[in-house]
């Protein structure tokens, strides 16, 4: 292993990238699943090794192909992206573990290998977005992950998956192009695409209005990619009609990588106070986050389909991450990072449990949930705990995130914001209650019900994540420290 140690960052990309075409050669479903699983596990260990390396010896700077930074592309991994990388890689493993039984229930055999090909490419892209230290390279990886996400969404059984994928493609491409316009303008001003160089050179040219225009294009482009309200229109249908395993995977990873890049660009590349109105920019992000948290959660309440409901809930939760970001203090950003981790855990668990429901009943609507508390106690309990976590009940991860966020708001004497965050929990509680009422209390006493729990191969990955939800809710030592370190790394390229 010692010979590989300096090249861990490159391996993280190369492994899934090479495995993807392998899946198209070995077309057997079981074999392709095996390839994806092995690569997923290797990448997780790799990501954890990278995190340890970053913590023991500081920022990893990896010059691709041996070309040093301003000329070549470099991967630059510090506390912030190493943390995000671990989240993405670990969620990916559970996604693949879950897909083994979940995918054959929705897809014909001959298409399964294509799904894993797209899945591995998507994972490659997400890792690349996270670790790259070059803004144009980020665009390339963004498009690798986005293009394969469109394919993944189109695998859904409902024909509306096709239109959801196409609409996502159109909006997603406009977003990526906006981002390219932004970095093109930055390149014209500074002559560099390297993030560290940009952070150094931008303060010299802040007088130009071009910086402001570039900032606008980049933030809007990335807001669409991370589904920040009001740029979220692609998300509900894409999540609702994608295969269940894909939804679980995307909910925990795709928007997370985009949020990380957003934080990196808005807070590191454009340093605080770089233009006269930067406070206004942060306030706008804050306001948009609050609006998103309330509006999306309210819409979630009115959805009859569980996947739709929790997709809207994702948009609301991204709003909370934006609130932490908009505070632009290290406590606020730490809260965002923490919520990024926690939300990945809870939402993946919830979507997996919804997938269990689909396998057992063939439907994900609220109506199919009647008596679910008795018919499928484990599945219902998983959704319930995930829901409680979303609300922020003590002893769940959601509580820890909310605690950090409220503390960060109080540090700045923003009592109104703390109150709003807590009020947001009430709106979340409303739609979670809707689920509880249907699953546990709307029982028809005259119909007999049989126990029809989902297979164990689906319940096990779901419950590992549910238990992780409780574990990290009680013991927030690890996540709290990591999130704080990540936030400090965002506020400057320190090692």
């Amino acid at each position, binding site marked *: 292993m010692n010979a590989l140690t300096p090249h861990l960052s490159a391996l993280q990309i190369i492994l899934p990238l090479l495995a993807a075409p392998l899946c198209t050669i070995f077309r057997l479903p079981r074999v392709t699943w095996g390839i994806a699983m092995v690569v997923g596990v290797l990448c997780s260990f790799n990501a954890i090794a990278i995190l340890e390396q970053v913590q023991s010896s500081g920022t990893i700077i990896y010059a691709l192909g041996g070309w040093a930074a301003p000329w070549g592309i470099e991967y630059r991994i510090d506390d912030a992206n190493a943390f995000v990388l671990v989240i993405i890689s670990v969620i990916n493993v559970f996604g693949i573990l879950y897909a083994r039984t979940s995918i054959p229930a929705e897809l014909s055999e001959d298409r399964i290998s294509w799904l894993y090909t797209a899945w591995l490419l998507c994972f490659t892209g997400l890792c690349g977005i996270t670790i790259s230290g070059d803004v144009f390279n980020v665009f390339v990886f963004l498009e690798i992950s986005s293009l394969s996400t469109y394919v993944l969404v189109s695998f859904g059984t409902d024909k509306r998956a096709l239109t959801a994928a196409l609409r996502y*493609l159109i909006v997603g491409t406009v977003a990526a192009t906006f981002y390219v316009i932004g970095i093109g303008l930055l390149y014209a001003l500074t002559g560099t695409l390297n993030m560290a160089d940009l952070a150094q050179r931008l303060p010299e040219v802040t007088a130009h209005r071009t910086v402001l225009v570039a900032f606008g294009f980049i933030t809007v482009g990335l807001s669409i990619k991370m589904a920040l309200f009001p740029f979220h229109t692609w998300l509900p249908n894409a999540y609702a009609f994608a295969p269940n395993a894909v939804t679980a995977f995307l909910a925990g990873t795709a928007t997370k990588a985009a949020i990380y890049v957003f934080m990196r660009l808005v807070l590191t590349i454009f340093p605080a106070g770089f233009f006269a109105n930067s406070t206004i920019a942060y306030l706008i992000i804050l306001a948009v986050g609050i609006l998103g948290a309330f509006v999306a959660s309210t819409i979630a309440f009115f959805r009859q389909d569980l996947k739709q409901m929790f997709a809207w809930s994702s948009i609301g939760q991204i709003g909370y991450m934006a609130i932490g970001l908009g505070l632009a203090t290290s406590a606020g950003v730490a809260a965002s990072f923490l919520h990024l981790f926690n939300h990945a855990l809870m939402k993946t668990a919830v979507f997996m449990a919804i997938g269990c429901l689909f396998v057992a009943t063939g439907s994900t609507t609220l109506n199919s949930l009647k008596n679910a508390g008795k018919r499928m106690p484990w599945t219902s309990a998983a959704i319930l705990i995930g829901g409680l976590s979303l609300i922020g009940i003590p002893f769940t991860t959601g509580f820890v995130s909310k605690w950090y966020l409220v503390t960060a708001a109080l540090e700045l004497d923003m009592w109104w914001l703390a109150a709003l965050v807590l009020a947001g929990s009430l709106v979340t509680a409303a739609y979670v209650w809707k689920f509880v009422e249907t699953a546990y209390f709307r029982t028809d006493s005259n119909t007999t019900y049989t126990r029809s729990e989902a297979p164990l191969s689906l319940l096990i990955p779901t419950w590992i994540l549910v238990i992780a939800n409780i574990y990290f809710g009680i013991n927030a030592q690890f996540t709290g420290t990591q999130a704080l370190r990540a936030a400090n790394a965002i506020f400057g390229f320190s090692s």
Partner: protein
Amino acid sequence: MTTFLGLLNYWVVIALMMTGLYIVIAASNYIKKIIGLNIFQTAVFIMYISIGKVSGGTAPILTGQPEIYSNPLPHVLILTAIVVGVATTALGLALIVRIRSAFGTIDDHDVRESVNE
């Protein structure tokens, strides 16, 4: 060079960009939307290429004597972006083929009506 004609490239870029974006938003036919997307992306390609051009510069080939040459980097970047654009167009059109066989139409309005959205 900051005359209207000196900035001609950028005026073209803005015109194409707005045209493309307008088509993406306004057209209800999916293929027209994809065409709009292409025009929008082409505008960005022209923007990058214009940024790299140095007036009087030649191609950046080593000939031994010092001379003015254009910045090749933006052109290379756009080569990548063109590939991404081609992939997006291909995927978009493939999805449209499948939408047509599933819904019998490629019009956004009709598709929405058929599923009561």
